[in-house]
């Protein structure tokens, strides 16, 4: 490369977790005044590598140098002392404290704590980089993007000039993402080294100066972003050529399947989660649900699945012959007893859809264990189903008696989706079906969902990646603060318009 000294030089970094080699002799250079995108599929070791830089893990082998000096990073504190700060995917903030209090938490500054002075410094940082945050606002009052801002300021406040962001855009709307990117560019121009971990290619292209790619824990290569393109990066990530188009077959003979009318849901704390929501989902169609996270998507799906107590409204299941049945007030067992075959792929795969400590066969049993009269369970058919799912969906697992928590994210999701579609559903609810999945697995899931749609299933697909929703869904229902902001056809919808509808009821009505 050129004669610049890298801010961080990682050499021969190896880290193993039991038999799993997470990083295998990885080389990586991070320069100041540059945004580096660290790209790779799930389980390729991106986060592990950065965790070693930020002191969470300690490498088994290898050397890290900061500004040409060899260092040992034993703890997050060591990392901070070296100016390295990491913003994790899951925020680590105390809800009942204010932004300023969270930011100074754990800092041992001499003298009395003067929150006003802290706030002043925070405002200084905000002005320098273009953040917007009120230092005295409580965390519980904040949106996800504001919380993320607090996390970033927390790191800057500690004087970090090497920033690592782990999938920062996963929880943001397009508009918030643009704001974040503007801030990150300001930091780069200020001479800081910025690393973002991601697997969204269009973000890499939009934001980064250089891209480094990991695959199966190994360093594959790095190059200036300008000199590459999405297809080449994908091929490097996956190791072979893949097609990046999502199919969208025309719906065949759509009939009303689920009719939701004036649905209202309150959380246990009395917060209105869904407010007068009405729509119809048709068979043979994918209805996409877009919205900022926490706008009622979870409550909507769980209401239909019989898991969420509702306050008002109705959810009707309409059979092919036009017979209608009310689902509200019934639990999942009662819904199944009615003969409604409703499958649900929840957001929380290991905490709700599957049992992490159980093996594949036992997880298959979750849906079917009541079958048969006797006192004892039938162990044979779940085993058979597990073998079929592993074979049909190409799940990579040592055996069907491996606990599912040991599988990678993509394989966990294949197991869950495989089980849910095995019961030949007429309605398929999916929440963030490809969250955290790599490209290969994501396309497998899109393909499975499309096949269900073609088989006449009414699919309700809650998604966070607007680009995917726009390519996959036949219609898109946009939620905003628990209300229906609008329903638009998927073909021809503009990302900008949907983004506006996510943040404001009715979307760009104000502009017209």
């Amino acid at each position, binding site marked *: 490369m050129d004669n610049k000294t890298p801010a961080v030089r990682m*050499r*021969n970094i190896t880290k*193993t*977790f*039991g*038999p*799993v080699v997470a990083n295998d002799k990885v080389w990586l250079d991070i320069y100041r005044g540059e945004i580096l995108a660290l790209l790779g599929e799930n389980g390729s070791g991106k986060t592990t590598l950065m965790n070693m830089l930020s002191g969470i893990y*300690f490498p*088994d082998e290898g*050397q890290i140098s900061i500004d040409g000096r*060899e*260092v*040992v990073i*034993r703890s997050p504190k060591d990392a901070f002392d070296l100016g390295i700060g990491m913003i994790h995917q899951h925020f680590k903030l105390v809800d009942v404290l204010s932004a300023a209090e969270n930011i100074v938490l754990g800092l041992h500054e001499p003298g009395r704590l003067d929150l006003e002075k802290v706030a002043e410094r925070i405002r200084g940082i905000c002005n320098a980089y273009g953040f917007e945050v009120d230092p005295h606002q409580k965390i519980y009052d904040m949106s996800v993007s504001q919380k993320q801002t607090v996390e970033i300021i927390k790191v800057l406040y500690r004087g970090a000039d090497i920033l690592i962001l782990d999938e920062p855009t996963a929880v943001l709307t397009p508009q918030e993402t643009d704001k974040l990117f503007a801030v990150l560019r300001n930091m780069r121009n200020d001479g800081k080294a910025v690393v973002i971990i991601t697997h969204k290619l269009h973000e890499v292209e939009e934001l980064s100066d250089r891209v480094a790619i990991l695959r199966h824990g190994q360093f594959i290569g790095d190059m200036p972003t300008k000199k590459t393109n999405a297809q080449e990066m994908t091929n490097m990530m996956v190791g072979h050529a893949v097609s990046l188009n999502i199919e969208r077959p025309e719906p065949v003979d759509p009939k009303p399947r689920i009719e939701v009318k004036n649905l209202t849901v309150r959380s246990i704390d009395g917060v209105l989660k869904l407010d007068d929501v009405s729509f119809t989902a048709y068979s043979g169609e994918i209805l996409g649900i877009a919205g900022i996270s926490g706008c009622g998507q979870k409550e909507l799906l769980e209401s239909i*699945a*019989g*898991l969420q107590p509702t306050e008002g409204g109705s959810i009707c299941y309409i059979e092919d012959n036009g017979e209608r049945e009310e689902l509200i007030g019934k*639990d*999942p*067992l*009662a819904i*199944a007893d009615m003969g409604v075959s409703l499958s*649900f792929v*929840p957001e*929380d795969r290991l*905490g*709700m*859809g*599957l*049992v*992490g*400590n*159980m093996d594949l066969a*036992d997880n298959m*049993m*979750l*849906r079917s*264990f*009541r079958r048969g009269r006797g*006192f*004892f*369970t039938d*162990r044979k058919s779940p085993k058979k189903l597990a073998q079929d799912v592993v074979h049909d969906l190409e799940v990579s697992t040592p055996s069907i008696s491996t606990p599912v928590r040991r599988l990678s994210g993509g394989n966990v999701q294949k197991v869950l989706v495989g089980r849910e579609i095995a019961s030949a559903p007429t309605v398929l609810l999916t929440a963030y079906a490809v969250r955290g999945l790599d490209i290969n697995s994501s396309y497998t899931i899109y393909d499975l969902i499309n096949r269900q749609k073609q088989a006449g299933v009414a699919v309700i697909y809650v998604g966070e990646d607007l680009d995917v929703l726009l390519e996959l869904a036949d219609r898109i229902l946009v939620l905003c603060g628990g209300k229906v902001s609008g329903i638009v056809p998927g073909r021809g919808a503009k990302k900008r318009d949907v983004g506006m509808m996510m943040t404001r009821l009715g979307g760009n009505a104000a502009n017209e």
Partner: protein
Amino acid sequence: MNKQSKGPLVHIVKRGSLPWYAAWGIRALAIVLALIACALVTTVTTGENPIQVYAAMIDGAFGTARKTWITFQNMSVLLCISLAVTPAFRMRFWNIGAEGQTLAGCLATAACMILLADKLPNWLLICTMILSAIAAGAVWGLIPAIFKAKWNTNETLFTLMMNYVATQLVAYFVILWEVPKGAGKIGIINQSSELGWLPQLFGSKYLLSIIVVAIATILMYLYLNYTKQGYEIAVVGESERTARYVGIKVEKVIIRTMAISGAVCGLAGLLLVGGINHTVTTTIVGGRGFTAVMVSWLAKFDPIIMIFTSLLLVFLERGASEISTDFGLNQSFSDIITGIILFFIIGCEFFINYKISFRKAAGKEG
């Protein structure tokens, strides 16, 4: 020269999974190390020959046919209570009230023997004892379960408190039924008539409880691993949200499982009073309700492995009390020995789950 910077001297790495023989190798090594540590402590503090001490321990547990029978009888009671707590533990319901649930079973058995002995034919009396002991244990388990299911109270505290309630109840009835008046204890119930005494099998007074518990162990193993209810328990234990998601009624499972847990404790109480001691005191369970927690955990909630862990704990207890009498040592000395051995056995689980790697002595050049 540039300074070779050093990593931390040791760091801890989580293992994937060990093959079973390596895991059992580590456990065997832990026992050997524990015995060596005990030998050192014995020699240093008492000057006794540790080999002799160990010989005495084995002698205490298995020295004569009678001692062996008693060891197995004690083991059967401990195993029975351990079986009782296991379904609750699999459900992540921390039932530490086995002491009280067993005591409730003891009290119910004794009540039948005292109050109904001359009113019912013996076979009917024994049937009543069985039913009431199991029912009493089940009720003692049900009370905290219902509170947990309806109002999400803390089951650990609740079951613990129920122990003291049971103890006080027994204390009350001991005074009420004391024989002779003023003795402060009940003494052997129906000593001359032997009414309500559980029958001896094959002429041995030890065999009944052993056989009953052996059957209970197999049933519990089948129940937990091969039945729909056992599967529901496992799902509720791992994740209540998953259970709700597939339509399992969590409250119902909690209540049903604790009823079973308490009922098996009640069975242990029946064996203790009707089959072994023929009396009831406040200390008849003798802390076995708590030892059972350890038996169950050490066996990772597997009823078959619990056979071995309960034997180990009973062996330690009987062996240790033998050495304190044989060598004229303080009773606390046997506690020390038991403590050291358990420390090693429980501690070795850490080495099964984690690996400790040391910094390589010669730093490799980069």
